[in-house]
């Protein structure tokens, strides 16, 4: 049933549970909304942009980020918490020879804490099914053409871990500050459907 993975039954269950808990006075709906809003407010792609810019200017941070991203994030006041559990994050680095692209073929798993809510195309069956079998063509549809000899690595976030791509630092940006570098990064760059 993996291709039919769908959050609807669980969403219905959550709604029912929520209603029962409210009825029994164990849950305050307004408090729940406040908690969700606080998480959503903090969860923006600007977090991912900051992580990338720091990795570009700080080799030590970058090494830690690639080795154990969850350990590296607190240096920027960030974490993969916010949900029921802290999710493991893998940061995968683009190089001259390797380009990474992220998908969740079973549903739409995504590092919301660092990238904000996922774009609609990321959740579309078209992207999810085609990027695993024909990544080069999918990237071309995003207007992103890779050299023929670049190795493409697709990461399917099919289980507990989440992925973020560390794009290559653009050439000619040696003079830019960390803040200026962060402004060069795009959400698609963090998913791998853009160069930066």
């Amino acid at each position, binding site marked *: *049933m*993996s*291709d039919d*993975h769908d959050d609807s039954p669980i969403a219905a269950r959550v709604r029912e549970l929520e209603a029962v808990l409210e009825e029994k006075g164990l849950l305050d709906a307004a408090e729940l909304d406040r908690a969700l809003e606080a998480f959503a407010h903090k969860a923006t792609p600007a977090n991912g942009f900051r992580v990338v810019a720091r990795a570009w200017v700080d080799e030590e941070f970058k090494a830690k980020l690639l080795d154990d991203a969850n350990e590296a994030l607190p240096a920027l006041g960030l974490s993969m918490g916010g949900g029921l559990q802290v999710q*493991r994050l893998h940061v995968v680095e683009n190089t001259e020879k390797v380009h990474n692209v992220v998908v969740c*073929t*079973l549903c739409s798993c995504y590092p919301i804490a660092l990238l904000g809510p996922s774009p609609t195309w990321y959740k579309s069956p078209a992207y999810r099914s085609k990027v*695993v*079998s*024909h*990544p*080069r063509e999918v990237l071309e549809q995003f207007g992103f053409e890779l050299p023929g000899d670049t*190795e*493409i*690595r*697709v*990461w*399917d*976030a*099919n*289980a*507990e*871990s989440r992925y973020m791509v560390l794009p290559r630092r653009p050439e000619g940006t040696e003079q830019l500050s960390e803040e200026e570098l962060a402004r060069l990064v795009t959400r698609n760059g963090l998913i791998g459907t853009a160069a930066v």
Partner: protein
Amino acid sequence: MSERFRESDRVRTSTVDPDHHTRLPNYARGRVGTVVGGDGVHPLADLRAQGVERPQPVYLVRFTARELFGHGDHTVTLSLWEDYLSDE
């Protein structure tokens, strides 16, 4: 928890398409890949969806596109629970 597989081991994924929830996608069933790392210890998703918590090692397994789809020069890496895997 002892791990059955190590990095660079060749493994084959299960061919079973169960009626229940699973996290082994259809396109990666019955395929041979290489373990490229560990991905922690997590309750097996199939059982967890049925209310049973049975933690076991999860592995990062890389497959060539040719193995998965019969064409292409890229790779696809998935996180796979130990129960999904056997020796090549």
